[in-house]
């Protein structure tokens, strides 16, 4: 039994994939658009012009897979969760934090805490909340 996070990007999934490729070295393992799906989509289920949007994508970040999609156009916004990125070095923590925060919002700068030499929180340009942590 294994778990992967699934992010619903409301129309910006492809832009997000390109951003995470650059910011995190993510590899796009697969990306399928609604119009390429073997399953025909009933037109009324999706907003107009949604056929080029991403039905499902898989991003490989390190040895983790993160799934994404544009959803059905009704999600609007991320709430109730964060993605926790565990860095191996101080340099990686700083680099990843800066890259993810660009165009987004820093909630807590990378700081020494009782549980980590470097921990910070941000929301990226798509509204995805992240924690970046260098484990003790």
């Amino acid at each position, binding site marked *: *039994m294994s778990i992967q996070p*699934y992010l619903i990007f409301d129309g910006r999934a492809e832009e997000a994939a390109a951003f995470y490729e650059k910011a995190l070295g993510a590899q796009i393992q697969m990306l399928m658009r609604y119009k390429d799906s073997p399953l025909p989509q009933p037109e009324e289920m999706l907003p107009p012009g949604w056929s080029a949007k991403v039905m499902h994508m898989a991003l490989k970040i390190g040895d983790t897979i993160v799934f994404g999609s544009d959803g059905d156009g009704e999600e609007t916004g991320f709430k109730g*969760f964060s993605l926790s990125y565990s860095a191996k070095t101080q340099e990686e923590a700083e680099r990843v934090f800066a890259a993810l925060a660009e165009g987004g919002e820093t909630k807590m700068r990378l700081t020494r805490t009782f549980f980590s030499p470097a921990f910070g929180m941000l929301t990226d340009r798509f509204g995805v909340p992240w924690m970046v942590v260098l484990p003790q």
Partner: protein
Amino acid sequence: MPIKPYLFFSGRADEAIAFYQNALGAEVNFLLRFDESPEPPPPGALAPDWGKKIMHSCLRIGDSEVFLSDGCGTGPAGFNGFGVSLEAKSVAEAERMFGALADGGEARMPLGETFFAVTFGMAVDRFGVLWMIIVPK
């Protein structure tokens, strides 16, 4: 595994942990309450009487780890914009987990074969977390 999901349960984290222990065989690897933290939070950072709430916990679910907490209690509760994809090893396991997760929640899409999966379904659990359960092809 550099990336793990972190879920915020706005006061219901203890209840959620018990639920996932039962529904998914989750094991608690770590749990810290706010009043056990060596560093007190800044004044006003937490909701009143939040001391016994969970500041951080780590659950092992199958081969993966998920983080969970009550958050600060000062923002709106609820989940939106994401799901947790859960890969089962067999249709029987998928059915058992789906049934357990949908109990008290909502079966968004019943388990069934798709072009990409032996079986795939979606359920929102009683806390509002969206689970996508899959046995891939």
